[in-house]
């Protein structure tokens, strides 16, 4: 069930959802993803939008559609690594933007990051 | 699945027939009551029973006209006109099906009463048509059947004419959003007046102006002639009026 932000392009969020699954190891090379129609029904999204996402995924080389069989993950370790890095960069960019808007200087960032990580670990030691 | 006009017409016919079941039932129940009361009588057969039968006959002739208003206007009041106007059929077919239903109603109702009358006649009423009664002459006249049939068909044609007028006046009324009722009534009366003027202008006498009984006993063949001419003129007028109504429905009516 896709939980998407309506102020952003939906097809991009579909792509991101698959990318997340790949990076987290929930999907790997050779796995079959739902057909466009199935996905549209599950996510409750226009089939045209799903088609656009799948076409983009195919263009990016992340998936491959085999006639009569379905759509399969084609991304290899290198690609997944690339995606992982891109996603991380995006999150980091957002973090850096937000944190500096609070007034923190560049040299304080590593410090506050480590402090918080320590606090969280002490609060939930089993995580 | 290929759709054809006959199937579509059949569906429209059945649907419209269902809509006037109450009107049909009035006549059926009336006939059943009259017939039952005659056969369940405890005394001698009374010719008075003819009166309710004739009244029912009049009703059977009049109800289809009443139903013609109900059949068409109801589509608007029930919003089913949204369905009907979206169908890929012409106004002629939509109204044609309704017309056939009204004709069926008329024929079925009058036939039912005729059968009932015949049953009553054969079961006791015939004695009132003995040679001493003045009405006996009528039954001995072999041309009487022809006359009655011509009269019946004339009545049918006149009903069709009235129903077409009803349809036309209703679609004209629907052209206006606010004053539909008034305009419908006005259009109905106007059409009757104009039709009357047309038939008079063509030198044909309106049959309802003649006391039929007198003519029947008098010059029968010229009476039948006048009747047929009148029917023909009414039929032609009915067709023209129907076509007008269909054109307005197809081109001018909006939702």
């Amino acid at each position, binding site marked *: 069930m896709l939980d*998407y932000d*309506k*102020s*952003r*392009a*939906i*097809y991009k969020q579909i792509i991101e959802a698959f990318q997340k699954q790949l990076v987290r190891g929930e999907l790997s090379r050779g796995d079959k993803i739902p057909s466009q*129609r199935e996905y*549209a*029904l599950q*996510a*409750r*999204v*226009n*089939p*045209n*939008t799903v*088609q*656009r996402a799948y076409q983009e995924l195919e263009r990016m080389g992340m998936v491959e559609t085999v006639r009569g069989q379905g759509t399969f993950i084609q991304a290899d370790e290198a690609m997944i690594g690339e995606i992982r890095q891109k996603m991380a960069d995006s999150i980091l960019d957002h973090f850096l933007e937000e944190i500096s808007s609070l007034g923190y200087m560049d040299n304080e960032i590593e410090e506050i990051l480590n402090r918080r990580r320590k606090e969280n670990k002490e609060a939930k030691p089993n995580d | *699945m*290929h*759709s054809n006009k006959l*199937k*579509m017409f*059949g*569906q429209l016919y059945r*649907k419209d027939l*269902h809509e006037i079941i109450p009107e049909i039932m009035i006549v059926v129940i009336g006939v059943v009551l009259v017939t039952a009361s005659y056969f369940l009588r405890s005394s001698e057969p009374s010719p008075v029973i003819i009166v309710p039968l004739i009244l029912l006959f009049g009703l059977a002739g009049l109800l289809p006209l009443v139903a013609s208003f109900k059949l068409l206007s109801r589509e608007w009041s*029930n*919003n*089913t*006109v*949204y*369905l009907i*106007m*979206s*169908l*890929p*059929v012409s106004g002629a077919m939509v109204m044609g099906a309704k017309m056939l239903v009204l004709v069926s109603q008329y024929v079925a109702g009058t036939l039912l009463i005729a059968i009932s009358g015949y049953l009553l006649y054969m079961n006791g009423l015939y004695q009132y048509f003995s040679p001493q009664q003045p009405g006996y002459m009528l039954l001995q006249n072999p041309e009487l059947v022809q006359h009655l049939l011509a009269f019946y068909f004339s009545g049918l044609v006149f009903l069709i004419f009235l129903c077409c007028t009803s349809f036309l006046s209703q679609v004209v009324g629907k052209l206006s*959003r606010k004053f539909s009722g008034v305009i419908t009534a006005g259009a109905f009366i106007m059409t009757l007046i104009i039709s009357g003027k047309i038939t008079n202008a063509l030198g044909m006498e309106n049959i309802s102006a003649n006391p039929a009984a007198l003519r029947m006993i008098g010059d029968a063949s010229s009476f039948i002639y006048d009747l047929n001419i009148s029917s023909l003129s009414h039929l032609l007028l009915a067709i023209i009026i129907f076509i007008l109504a269909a054109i307005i429905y*197809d081109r001018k009516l*909006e*939702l």
Partner: protein
Amino acid sequence: MIEFSNVSKSFGSVQALNQLNLQISQGKIIGLFGPNGAGKSTTMKMIAGLNQPDSGNVLVDGKKPRQNRARIAYLPEIDHLYGWWTLQQAADFTRSFYADWDDTKYQEMLKFLNLDGEMKLGKISKGQRAKCKLLLTVSRRAPYLLMDEPLSGIDILTREEIINTLIHDFQEGEQTIIISTHEIDEVESLVDEVYFIDQGRIVVSGAAEELRMEKGLSLVEIMKEAFRHAQQ
């Protein structure tokens, strides 16, 4: 394709459409959004051939709407079917008029929507009636499907069923669905293209995804902004 060229329409003193221009391409789900009285219903009825413009032209695939009635499935907001009909009778009636009726689809969707052919249309709940209307429409493979406020007054669970049906059934590229509603939120994820109508004119139009990327707003937000501007 559906084309409106400078279409104006008045009902008495009320101007419903004011020089409206529209070009709806085939194979997409189109959202016709706007407040009540904006002209959505009038536009839908015009496409269905139920009314005509006072000025300007309406063409559906190059022909007048009234000539295209066999290819259009129109679902008005109001209850437009005979209350004494059972669902099966309504289906039999519809099937006789349209060559594009697909009985296998009818049986399949009957189960999908949890409906019963013996239901009397006048006696069931509003939600069930909405589902029946939808069933009769999707059982036809009509190239144009016009839905006027299909979700209004319907309970949430039934709305989900209706939206699921549309997704399940939409034939991309072959079918054009036009949904008019003032509840944009419900159909945000469903529409390919949107047209915002206010006071008989199109104030915003475009592909949904492109509008989102361009403005960084949801369709609901975009409409609010458009109407704020229109009122100034």
